[in-house]
């Protein structure tokens, strides 16, 4: 997609500033997934494959309802089913739609070494521009949620785009449009937070005293949020991280190591020059030339 027409906030591995001629205040959007309304029908998985012209494999059943079993280059969202007994004797079947959380502080973008392969728009959507992707997999290391997947077909990374192409023309994402119960809703992040508040009030009235919005601060907040019945225990939902943050290794590698390496490089050049000036080039002794 032509970069001129998009309101870009950040690009991977790029120090030249992104275009920002437009007025500040592109409305940050968000997709809100209310797990208490989700019936696990997988219509969102199908809509995503249809909109993006993807077709995953017809796999096998290993004893669970999760199909496909994991995200792939062809499945950018999957439902994860967890049977838990939160209260004694009360079974719950928690079904979470897994996919990119579109972090405000994206670990993938930070870790990516390829200029412009990962892009963050002003509205919050984090998109992969695969034409620039080198398939190194650093984005997966950088992601606190283990989302991107490298394709075996073209060695590039893929993940949910929050339907940036649909949102770009004023439409809601395909999964939002198709969700039969309205468990997935979309709009400005402010509106989605407001909507979530109403849902949380309702859940508390039904006995879910720890119902809460999942909008983790460790990644600056996310543009995909969950309403969790058990907001105090996100790990119940197929290991949704309780307090996700970008691995310190990434921060280190893309952070302080860069100026340190620059310093080291500079020192090496200076040391080499100094050595040449003082000690001169290496000279081979006459005696050593005999063989």
């Amino acid at each position, binding site marked *: 997609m032509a970069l001129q027409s998009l309101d870009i906030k950040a690009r991977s591995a790029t120090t030249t500033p992104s275009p920002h001629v437009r007025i500040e205040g592109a409305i940050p959007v968000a997709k809100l997934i209310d797990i208490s309304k989700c019936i696990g029908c997988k219509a969102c998985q*199908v809509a995503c494959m249809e909109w993006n012209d993807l077709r995953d494999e017809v796999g096998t059943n290993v004893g669970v309802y999760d199909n*496909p079993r994991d995200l792939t280059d062809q499945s950018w969202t999957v439902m994860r089913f967890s049977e838990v007994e939160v209260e004694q004797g009360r079974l719950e*079947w928690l079904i979470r739609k897994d996919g990119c959380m579109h972090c405000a502080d994206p670990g993938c973008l930070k870790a990516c070494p390829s200029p412009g392969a990962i892009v963050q728009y002003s509205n919050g959507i984090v998109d992969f521009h695969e034409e620039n992707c080198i398939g190194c997999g650093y984005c997966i290391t950088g992601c606190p949620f283990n989302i991107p997947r490298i394709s075996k077909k073209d060695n590039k990374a893929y993940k949910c785009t929050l339907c940036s192409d649909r949102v770009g023309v004023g439409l809601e994402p395909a999964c939002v449009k198709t969700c039969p119960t309205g468990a997935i809703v979309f709009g400005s992040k402010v509106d989605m937070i407001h909507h979530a508040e109403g849902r949380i009030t*309702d859940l508390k009235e039904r006995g879910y005293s720890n119902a809460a919005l999942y909008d983790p601060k460790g990644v600056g907040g996310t543009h995909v949020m969950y309403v969790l019945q058990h907001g105090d225990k996100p790990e119940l939902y197929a290991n949704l991280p309780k307090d996700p943050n970008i691995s310190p290794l990434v921060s280190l590698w893309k952070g302080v190591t860069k100026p340190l390496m620059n310093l080291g490089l500079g020192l090496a050049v200076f040391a080499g020059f100094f050595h040449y000036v003082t000690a001169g080039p290496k000279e081979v002794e006459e005696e050593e030339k005999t063989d």
Partner: protein
Amino acid sequence: MTNHWVDIKNTDLVLIMGGNAAEAHPCGFKWVTEAKAHRKARLIVVDPRFTRSAAVSDYYAPIRAGTDIAFLGGVINYLLSNDKIHHEYVKTYTDFSFLVKDEFAFNDGLYSGYNPEKRSYDKSTWGYQVGADGYVVTDPTLQNPRCVYQMMKAHYVRYTPDVVSSICGTPKEAFLKVCEMIAGTAAPNKAMTIMYALGWTQHSQGSQMIRTGAMVQLLLGNIGAAGGGMNALRGHSNIQGLTDLGLLSNLLPGYMSLPGDVEQDYATYIEKRAFKPLRPGQLSYWQNYGKFFVSNMKAWWGDAATAENNWCYDWLPKLDKGYDLLQVFENMNQGKVNGYICQGFNPLASAPCKVKVSGSLAKLKFLVIIDPLATETSEFWQNHGEYNDVDPAKIQTEVFRLPSTCFAEEDGSLVSSSRVLQWHWKAAEPPGDAKGDQEIMAGIFLRLRDLYKKGGGAFPDPILNLTWKHRQPEAPSPEELAKEYSGKALKDVTDPKDPAKVLVKAGEQLNGFAELRDDGSTSCGCWIFSGAWSEKGNLMARRDNSDPYGIGQTLNWAFAWPANRRVLYNRASCDPSGKPYDPTRKLIAWDAASGKWGGADIPDFKPDSPPEDGMNPFIMNPEGVARFFAVDKMAEGPFPEHYEPMESPLANNPMHPKNEMARANPAARVFKEDWASFGKPDQFPYVGTTYRLTEHFHFWTKHARLNAIIQPEQFVEIGEDLAKEKGIKDGDHVRVRSKRGFIVAVAVVTKRVRTLDVEGRKVHTVGMPIHWGFMGLTKNGYITNTLTPFVGDANTQTPEFKAFLVNIEKV
């Protein structure tokens, strides 16, 4: 449904039982989500498994498959014992006060008149006391021990919470909690809706399960109310249309019935069905049966049907017995059927007891498959290894496949569960040589008619005289067919009160069934659909979803039968004086000023009958009221009673442990050879139950890549206790066996299928989704119906797919 999908958003309490609404109807389920979000409605799920519906419920209670009558009987007992009923409603609008015949009796599980050899009842004692005036005798004080109220109380007092818990395996506290939540909706301003489906119909006592649910709703005053009702969630697209058009083997369109063998006389046939009122001032709308019938015969045989020949009555087949699916395959098995036209149906996969069905098909001379897909039935003769182990050399059946269009490749109307007829338009061209069903049927009919014309035959009259006025005889259009079933005037139709006034001119489409006549002046292919295509045009194509009263009464969206009434029995939403019980959800009310009933819905009632005339809401019943006592309408008895499924883990019926005849449904039909095919708990100790998943529709969507991706392979679900006992882990392959065969599948070990405590023992359930077979894109699977028993409901013959016996082991 008595109510409709959108109306569900008006409810305070949803009971999903005998069905799995979220799983099977994810789109319709949004109305439950709306009710929860905007009315703070609560959702209860009662099911042998913790389903997708249970996942979003407020309360879940487990139940042993097949014991719903015991559970609901216990609810009836709870409501009556705690007096949590809508008093005015039951007194006025039901048969609470009606006196039952003295000869009627119930003894140790059997009603009076049982014939054990015939496995059926002489129902002559199953009736009301009738006075000299021809009306039912009543006791408004409700004290007479023979009044329905007292008899029902006595019948269900036996279903105590302890008894229910022991039979159903539902923990007592869970059962009582459900009762408590249900009882709250007896208040006039509270409504409960029951959403059910195949979990209630696919049992040998399925009809009675539904009856018991309806009785609970009547006690609470929830029938006829917004947010109430008994709501059957129909499955296959246009299954509602199928039953409405009378395509079941014993019906005529609009729920009229074919005559029986003994009904050779036309006048007697009509009299038996045109019920006269059994209480003063009641409408008893089936009185007009003759008008519906004659108009239907005019639609089929046009000018050939005259008053002199009783409208071609003699051309109708007269049934000596039912010719339902099971009977037809039984006949086929006995070599009595030459050919079978199988249209939009896959019996090898859908019918019970695959080995019997496969053997039956092999005895046909020819089989015609009309279907968009290559189904298992079309390949029944082909060896597919372990999945269809047959020898084609031994099968002589000639199979013809006529590819048809699918729903998106044709125009036409579909009827939803809400009884709404919605017109849809063709979206794509069919592939290859596929033709629409009308064209295929027309092709067969026209050639048969020609053969009869040229060569005569045993009785060609009905075929030669069938009306076929289609502009393109080889391709009847959906519009022509729709106009035919909606009906038109053949001669001027005049006002009975004023013969000079012409209501409909000859040749014009009718406005509704009130204009039907029994003198041959009207033609109508399906009386309940009448009005769907009037002179105003195709009302089914309307897409105005304005909701002026805010309760989902979108009267200008398509067309509902009957007469665009959206909530049936809506007169019962008002008290006897015509005031709504709940003004915030007013459907209709009596307006004295205009002398009419009206409001958000079309009155399901005589619109100008004032409340003081005492006409009651259940206008199709000759009594005018709803029946707790079903008189002779059900095969098993006027009050539902718990019977064990034909194959049960228990040796006897805990309600009648000493009466072997009352163990399972005493009126269920079993063919002679099939008795030997039933298993016993010593060999097959576990309860088997079959069901559907969201990701698939029957055996159809396994041919679609996207569906195959999201649910690729056959599995069965077992509880953790049974898995531990048998050493089975998630993902292991297991063999599930019944007396009729076996399947092999992947095991899903889950907390959602619980071991139940039943009559002092542990009962395990093995759950089996049905969607697999040897054709399509999913991994090859066994036909689950290899396991199921060849026995059905005593009233409908719907097979007992939901409760039978199996064994399981790791492979």
